[in-house]
Structure formats: structure tokens, C-alpha cells
């Protein structure tokens, strides 16, 4: 089923100069290989079109069920040079989680149990 990425993963982002890092964490271990297949560096680069002006690198952390993305040239120069409201890239995590993904329904339901989404639907 097609769901926003936030149904199956959560994230935290931060800055290093003009680069943003977004650590994406799967809610369940069974989702990790699927996210690894779906959320490629290219896909993320495309998602942040008009925001990330440089390249995107991806690192895999199977031990933490996490993917780490580096979005280069994304902060208008970074640090105090940047004129951006979000000069530290703190909200890029939520921006990545807007991405739409196609994930098997049983895996989404499993994630909903972990994230608390199923309780909120009740």
C-alpha cells in the first residue's frame, strides 16, 4: 500500500557546514531491507529537488536499522552565513518523511503498532 514514509520510519536531522544529515530509522527490523531498497540516494536527491543543490550520499547501518543520508549544498552556505529559517537543517527529517513509499500492508500494520499510529486511529 502507498503510505507516507513517516508511517514506517522516523528520523533526525542536523547540519555539518552546508551539508544536512538525515538519519532515517525503520520502526521494525523487517522494514529495514525494504527501506534500503526503496530509499536510494537518487530518490532522496529527487525528493529534495530545489532544496538540495549538491549530491546525496547514503550510508547503511543495518545494526541500527537506519540509513544515513548526506545532502550536500542544502543550507544556503551553512552556519551563520545562511539566511535560511532552518539554517541547521533541523526540519529536514520531517521533510524526508513526506516521501510516499509503497510497502506491503502487513509491514505497515506492524509499524503502526510500534509507532502508536494504530492507537491513534482508534
Amino acid at each position, binding site marked *: 500500500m502507498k503510505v507516507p514514509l513517516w508511517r514506517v520510519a522516523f528520523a533526525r536531522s542536523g547540519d555539518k557546514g552546508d551539508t544536512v544529515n538525515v538519519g532515517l530509522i525503520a520502526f521494525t527490523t523487517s522494514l529495514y531491507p525494504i527501506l534500503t531498497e526503496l530509499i536510494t540516494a537518487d530518490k532522496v536527491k529527487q525528493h529534495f529537488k530545489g532544496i538540495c543543490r549538491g549530491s546525496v550520499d547514503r550510508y547503511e547501518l543495518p545494526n541500527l536499522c537506519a540509513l544515513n543520508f548526506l545532502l550536500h549544498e542544502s543550507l544556503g552556505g551553512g552556519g*551563520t552565513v545562511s539566511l535560511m*529559517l532552518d539554517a541547521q537543517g533541523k526540519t529536514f527529517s*520531517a521533510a524526508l518523511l513526506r516521501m510516499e513509499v509503497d510497502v506491503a500492508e502487513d509491514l505497515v500494520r506492524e509499524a503502526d503498532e510500534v509507532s502508536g499510529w494504530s492507537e491513534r486511529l482508534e
Partner: protein
Amino acid sequence: MRVASGQGFWGDWQEAPKLQVRRGPIEYLMLDYLAEITMSILEKQRERDPAAGYARDFVDLVLDLAPDLVSKGIRVVSNAGGVNPDACRDALVQRLADVDTVRPLRIATVRGDDLMSRLDEVLAAGHELRNMETGEPLSTVRERVTAANAYMGAGPILEALRQEADVVVTGRSTDTALTYAPLIHEFGWEEDDWNRIAAGVVAGHINECGAQACGGNTLFRWREVDLVEPGYPIIEASADGSFVVTKHASLGGRVNWASVTEQLVYEMGDPTEYITPDCVADFSTIQLEDLGGDRVRVTGVEGRPRPELLKVSIAYRGGYKATGMLTYSYPDAYEKAVAADRVLRGRLDRLGLEFDEIRTEYVGAGACHGPLAGSPDPSVPEVELRISVRGDDRARVERFTRELAPLILAGPPTVTGFAAGRPRVHEVMAYWPALIEREVVESVVRVEVTEA
């Protein structure tokens, strides 16, 4: 062996270190005050006043905690010294004279990270301090440099602890060393015990952002975390390098697999190469086990030999900037803000004011997520116009700040939010990361202990 985190940056919650000391047993309290840009702010303060240039809040905090530190035997390790650890110590010594403790406090200062005072000498000796991102030599911006500090590792903190310091005040120490130096000291790890030191680095990374490891800024079931009085992380370390992340039970916040994982990936580059002055840690080897009850066990960390070079953080003057904000209300809030931006830019053009960059953002209509937020909702209750400029000429930036207020009467309708007055002009401090041979720094590192 417990190392508690009490401060994740300068300006963090002042109650946290007191709660760490008073709500349960700890052996060490680490306090991180220095972000990349903090050094240049402190350097500016020192230029104006030779007795300034350190985190003043730290002195108040130590004064408040002094009796507890002595009676409980808690040692403090902090980089609060900024660009002037000696002045920080002097302030501590002077003010501690009035505090009644059973015995005097031993205060250690660590110096040697400051390259600013000998920058020309260092450059003349052939260290080009090339920008790690652009490859340019520092000589291209030498005249504009305001601060240059090498990141020191555990060495000088270990020396201070060996000399039985109660409070260690450093300048630009690596944030993680404030946590792993106490571990090396207590467990007697060898300096080439890369796996254990790497485990200490991981512990340091978890501690260095305060509540962020304990349910602060979490996207995982964030509604369920009580953050009024959050616990800050505590590392319960074992000699074998494994440790448990936890918090005081009587405080809020939350420690679980999610809170620790979120902090582990924060500000992460290549996870297999987390470089510190004392080892290279491999974050892809970390194993987490959520034990429940706000306890997460960390094992399996592997590391590699320390790098030959030390990182240097340099700040240089990068011009001036200012940001102005005005709020437009429903109806057509976004459209009005766009119209105001057009008027303002037209007036800047009319004055012939040019800048290196002008940026307009619409808060409430995609300022954070840009095009990902979709097109602005026409019924949005209000939108804040946020317009910023940056340029080398202070006078031009100053002139820009006078163009916001006229929009109140001579601009689009239903505008408010101007009570704060004319925007302030800020000097931009640009960041220049570089590398330097260890020897240049380590040969001048000094550790001094004073009783107060």
C-alpha cells in the same frame, strides 16, 4: 562508573546539571558549552574584555554545586573555558572564596588549543590550514580570521584527573572527550585500546547533546514524553567498554532503543569513520539492547587507530546580515506577504542597494519544507514574511533594516508583528575547518591545577 550529561550546548536548560547531581548517584558530570561558532563569539568578548571569553553561566553553576561536588565526590569535566580558560578559573577561584565547603576544590585548566595567538607563526612554519571542503589555503582569508582552535583529545583531561582535579576547565576539547576521558582514567584503558576508546566515543556522542538522547526532539511517540523536567543521559560504563544509557528515575524524558538510535544518527557523516583525536570509531558495529525501564545497553563497538592530524576550527569575518519579519493575516495572508516582498524589493532596487544574497521565506506557507509543503493554503490564518539580506557593506545592510517599518502604513493591509522594532544587524562568522599536525598543538598543551 557513571558519567552524566548536564549541558548539550551553551544556553541549554540550566536546571539539568543540578538535577543530575542531586537526583541520584553519579561520579562525573560532563558539560558541553561549545558549538562550532561559539569560539568566535567568545573571542569577540575577549577582545573587548581580557577577563572574558568563557561561559559565565558555568561559574554560577559550579558555585551552586560546589558543596555537593565535595560531599558526593563528583568531578566536573567541561569545555566552558572557551577561548580563556584561565579567566574562567580566576572567576571560579575568586567567587568560591565565599562558598563554604569541607575542603578546597581543585580546579584544572587546560590550554593549548588556541592557535589564534600564534597563527602567523604557525602559517610561516608551513602549515597552510587548507579548508577541508574547498582546499583553499587559510592565507586567502587570514586578515579576517577571528578565532582558530584545534580540537584536543583526552590527553590533557587525563592529566588533570591524575592530578586529582575536581573541576576540569578546557577550551576547544572534542565534545566526546568530555565523556570518554573520565572512562579512560577510571578504567586505565591503554591509549591504543581502540575498541574500548571507540566505545567511549559512542558514549560521548550520546551524552553530548543532552536531552536529545532522552526523548527530547524525538519523532518517536513524541506526544507521550514528559519534557517538563526531563532526565538527561547518564552513561553507566563497565571496564570492558560496554555501557548502559539511562537517566534518573525521578525525572521525565525517556530512554529507549528509539531515543538512543535517534541521537546516534544525529550529525552523522560516514558512520564507519567517526573521527576523534583519540581513535576512529565505527558506528556500524554498535549493538543496542533495550532493557526496558529507561535502560539501553550498548555493546560491540569497534575502533581503529587515531588519526595523524587534528581538526582545527577557524572562524573568519564573512560580512553582515539582517532579517526582518512582518505578519499578514487572513484573508489572503500569503498573497499579501508576497505583495509586501515585491514592494520591499522594489524599494531596495530604487535605492540601488545590492546584496550578496536576499532571501524571502513565508513562515506558515512552506518556510521549512519549501516545495515539499505544496502550494500555500489560501485560508491560512496568517503568514509571516521573513526577508533576509547578507553583504560585505554594513551600511547597506543597516539601510535595509529601515525598509521594514514603512511597510506597516505604506504596504499591503492587515499587517502586524512589528513590535520588536528595527531588525538588528549581525556580523557573519564564516566557518573554516582545517587539519594540523598533532605535534604543533600537543607540544604547547598545558595543564595547571589550582585550589579554590
